[in-house]
């Protein structure tokens, strides 16, 4: 039996190279699980032109019409496929195929700058997804709770499967870094709070913490943004580095840091990067946004702060000054991360897939 995965972008719109990001990693993990279960899998995505690629033995189809109408592209995907799985809730208007699964990666419209109309539209998009597809897998409880608060009767259609971490790749090291490294391991999106991280670093430097080393491990999807970031952090260049890494190197990147910061403003699920940093035994400071609050218990396995610069700075400063607590939080983060082992994630997903799509 074949399941087609419908998603915005597994490859870049030109089909040339893979997109780097959590959604794409989620897709690959799911693809490999489905194949283990014996399903055939292909991927249909938005694109600039029509194309067909094979990557790691998977057929990937780009739909060029997405450049002028995502709805039309989705319609075409529906015509070319049987059983489908939507890798995210689609923003474009569409009719979901019945008896399909949609993956929710968390609330996306909680940006403080969102207009009331946008909020209403997003809620309607959720309502429609829940009503039509029948099964929504959410990566956090936060999305589910928001859905229940608006549509109590639809909440039972949601199954929560928290995100995963591969413990074989992400494990702790016992080396104590000197200077102390504070890491930002996220994409350069406004909602991820990169500017707050820079501001925090600047404040700590001004306060005279000269043994600190800041690193921003960012994505390569928008080279222009990376250049701009280097430009605005010129004053910090002695202590703050902007780098990009292949995913395979991220384990070492986390292990080289003692404090890892997730300063998201909004649009957050159970972040893969956060789980990976935890699995590497780092002390985590995260904002109390979305699904981050389902993996961090403030003061137990990390620090949760409101998405405000002052509080974020205070928390990082606290960890800088308290090596014992830093180590303790890191240890517990590592212990809790085990509950998110990718094997457990696969077991839960297998149940959903077998229930919805039937056995091969």
């Amino acid at each position, binding site marked *: 039996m074949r399941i087609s995965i419908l998603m915005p972008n597994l490859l870049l719109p030109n089909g040339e190279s893979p997109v780097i990001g959590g959604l794409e990693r989620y897709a690959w993990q799911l693809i490999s699980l489905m194949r283990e279960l014996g399903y055939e899998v292909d991927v249909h995505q938005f694109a600039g032109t029509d194309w067909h690629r094979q990557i790691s033995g998977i057929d990937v189809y780009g739909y060029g019409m997405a450049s002028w109408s995502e709805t039309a592209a989705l319609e075409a995907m529906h015509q070319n496929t049987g059983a489908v799985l939507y890798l995210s809730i689609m923003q474009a208007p569409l009719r979901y195929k019945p008896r399909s699964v949609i993956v929710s990666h968390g*609330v996306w*419209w*909680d*940006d*403080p*700058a*969102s207009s009331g109309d946008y*909020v209403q539209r*997003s*809620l309607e998009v959720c309502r429609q997804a829940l009503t039509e597809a029948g099964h929504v897998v959410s990566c*956090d*409880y*936060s999305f*589910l*709770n*928001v859905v*229940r*608060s608006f549509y*109590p*009767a639809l*909440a*039972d259609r949601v*199954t*929560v499967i*928290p995100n995963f971490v591969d413990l074989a790749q992400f494990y702790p090291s016992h080396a104590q870094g000197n200077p102390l490294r504070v890491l930002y391991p996220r994409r350069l999106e406004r909602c991820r709070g990169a500017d707050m991280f820079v501001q925090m670093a600047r404040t700590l430097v001004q306060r005279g913490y000269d043994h600190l080393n800041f690193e921003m491990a960012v994505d390569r999807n928008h080279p222009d943004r990376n250049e701009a970031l280097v430009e605005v952090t010129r004053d910090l260049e002695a202590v703050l580095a902007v780098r990009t890494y292949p995913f395979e190197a991220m384990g070492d990147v986390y292990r080289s840091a003692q404090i890892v910061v997730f300063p998201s403003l*909004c649009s957050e699920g159970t972040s893969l990067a956060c789980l990976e940093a935890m699995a590497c035994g780092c002390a985590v400071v995260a904002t*109390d*946004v*979305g699904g981050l*609050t*389902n*993996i961090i*218990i*403030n*003061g*137990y396995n990390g620090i*949760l702060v*409101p*998405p*405000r610069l002052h509080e974020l700075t205070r928390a990082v400063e606290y960890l800088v000054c308290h090596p014992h607590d830093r180590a303790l939080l890191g240890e517990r983060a590592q*212990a*809790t991360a*085990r*509950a998110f082992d990718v094997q*457990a994630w696969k077991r839960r997903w297998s149940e959903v897939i077998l229930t919805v799509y039937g056995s091969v």
Partner: protein
Amino acid sequence: MTGGRVAILTTNHFHPAGDRVIYGGAEKYGVELSRLLLSLGFEVSWWQIGDGWQKEILPGVIVRTLPAAEAPFHTIPQLNQAFHERAVDHDYFIYFVTFLAYPQAMEASISISHGVYWDYPGFDATLNTEADRAEWRRRLGIALSGPIRVVSVDTATINWVAATFPGLVSRFEYIPNFVDVAAVDATEPAGKAPGRIRVVYPRRLTTVRGINEMVRAAEVLSGRYPEVEFHFIGRGHQDEVEKDMMAWVSRHPGTYYYWLPPEDVLRVLKSADIAVIPSKAAEGTSLACLEAMAAGCAVIASWVGGLGNLIIDGYNGLIIKPTVHDLLASLERLIRDEELRVFLGRNARETAKAFDLPVWEQRWRKVIQSVFV
């Protein structure tokens, strides 16, 4: 801290006729908050709906009453108005429930959210039309915008606000509920015969708390596992429910029904192996869940509201969808797997320390000192 007078507005800390203390998590919260304010040098008074009586709930802490008859759209503007007229001689203000700050809020004020309470299907029927629901949301939005800080016991509420009134979250402060770890540690466990596994449901017998699912699960499992005891500890909202529950346990071996003063529930929790918090809606960072954790129980909690702030599935408890199916599966898993039970219980005890009363006090102190200046 220089002190000053703090007026706290609540709905019905005491029964409006003044004849009955309503025990529960929110009331415990109120007492600890009063104690904290007193320790910081403030004078504290409580204001609530009532017909003119006064009660002293702690030395020097008086509950006064205000008239209010109607609660349109889940707000009580009459109470809010009366409070604003009568409590003007105070310096600082706390709205103990968020909607009480509608339509107006005093300048130096804080409000408290105890969790989302509108996420059950029946809520829809309390506001019949889309226009009514919009009006309720509008009022709630106004109530949330007034106070300088809104303290929320869970992040589910903050996430809801972020997804509803995106700009408003900036005034929120997440302070999860507390458990007095020292008190739990000092509590003597109730007796238990050797070889038995004790499962406790320490909540009210109401639909939103998942009583129906729990009763069904106990019905199935009590036949299957004679060594397991199911304890239902809590009152019903209707007398009939208590009567039916007494009759039900008399028909099912291994099941027990009773209730106890809150501090005594702890004794049973300390003797228990498994605690079940299968809420279907209207849940914050449940005190019962925290107490069960501190008591070292393996907790089975639903993924509703703030419970996902306390439990990490498979680490310090199990998180389930509050259905009979999931409840049966998770209970059976824990009944059979002692090692897992012990692992979860031990981690629950450890995590509970992150919610210890002194930690809560410290977090609250920070908010109080930033607003009451």
